[in-house]
């Protein structure tokens, strides 16, 4: 192997490097992903679909929230879900069992979805089916509070779940993720009376210390207070998006 350029051509040797020429680039490292994300976003806008990227730790209730959302919106809004997991079709199967259009992306060992994976999924999972479009597409990202924050998928909004069984200081531990959120959902809020170590005010303070005024709501899918705040937020976003692309 040539040790200068690293190619595998036998007996290929470059002469000792001359004075190098330094080229200014100043381009984002995520350029290729961002380009694909912009393409996805154009596609979503043309289809009139609101796209929400759901992120959280594993087990904070993303799939449960989507199941409950599908029940609540049945008959009024057409929704679809792209699921991201390292392995298994389990989450997509759960949603399909409730009559939701769902597509599973398995990432293998990758800890996040990227714009190319979503693009490929859209080829197999069109937003228009039998002449009917999709009002809201949810992308349930791989459960992880670090990596998904770095990859734009083309979504319009990021929603980050923080379940009450996690620490209320998670926003301080994962600032990049929580700063990326357009909405923070405190899920499993029905458990609050039972938990003496999750303080809602402390969680909110931890979010504000990231220098953001992101709205924070509470949900408990299927139990009090259920998901009324979540549905209201989503309807408002849907209206706003429709005005933006009208």
């Amino acid at each position: 192997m040539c040790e200068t350029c690293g190619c595998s051509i036998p007996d290929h040797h470059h002469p000792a490097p001359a004075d190098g020429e330094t080229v200014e680039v100043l381009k984002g490292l995520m350029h290729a992903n961002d380009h694909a994300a912009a393409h996805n976003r154009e596609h979503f806008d043309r289809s009139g679909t609101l796209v929400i990227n759901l992120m959280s730790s594993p087990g904070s209730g993303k799939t449960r929230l989507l199941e409950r959302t599908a029940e609540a919106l049945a008959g009024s809004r057409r929704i679809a879900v792209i699921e991201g997991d390292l392995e298994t079709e389990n989450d997509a199967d759960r949603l399909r069992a409730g009559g939701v259009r769902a597509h599973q992306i398995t990432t293998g060992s990758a800890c996040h979805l990227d714009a190319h994976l979503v693009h490929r999924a859209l080829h197999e999972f069109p937003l228009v089916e039998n002449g009917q479009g999709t009002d809201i597409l949810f992308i349930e990202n791989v459960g992880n509070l670090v990596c998904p924050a770095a990859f734009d998928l083309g979504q319009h909004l990021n929603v980050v779940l923080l379940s009450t069984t996690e620490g209320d200081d998670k926003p301080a531990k994962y600032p990049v993720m929580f700063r990326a959120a357009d909405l923070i959902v405190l899920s499993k809020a029905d458990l609050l009376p039972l938990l003496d170590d999750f303080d809602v005010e402390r969680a909110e303070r931890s979010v504000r210390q990231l220098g953001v005024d992101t709205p924070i709501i509470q949900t408990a899918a299927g139990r009090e207070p259920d998901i009324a705040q979540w549905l209201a937020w989503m309807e408002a976003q849907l209206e706003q998006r429709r005005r933006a692309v009208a």
Partner: protein
Amino acid sequence: MHELSVCQALMAQVRELAAQRDAGAVGVITLRIGPLSGVEPELLEHAFTIAREGPWTGRATLTIEHVPLIIRCRECGEQGVARPNRMLCPGCESYHVDVVSGDELLLARVELLDARPATSAEPTV
């Protein structure tokens, strides 16, 4: 750890540049990274030793310029250095602040070595 994916995207960008400029090899690659980029510089350096294997970049080295996290208050106008999990105005402690710098994840410069005449063979990719 998504730093390997980020690093592979970096190497694709660098190799494209080396091919365009008909360089023989790549020397120093300089990145500019801020604390809000979501990328851990140490992990990126580690991933780089794997991702650089291949044409043009086998001997490349990585230099990271750390960009400070600076915020400006929308209420009192004060500006100052912050930490990612404590981005309150240094003057009035308001959370209504804008990021002045610190979210960068940029390829700043690439040193191209041993530029060859345009007619010579490309290394196989």
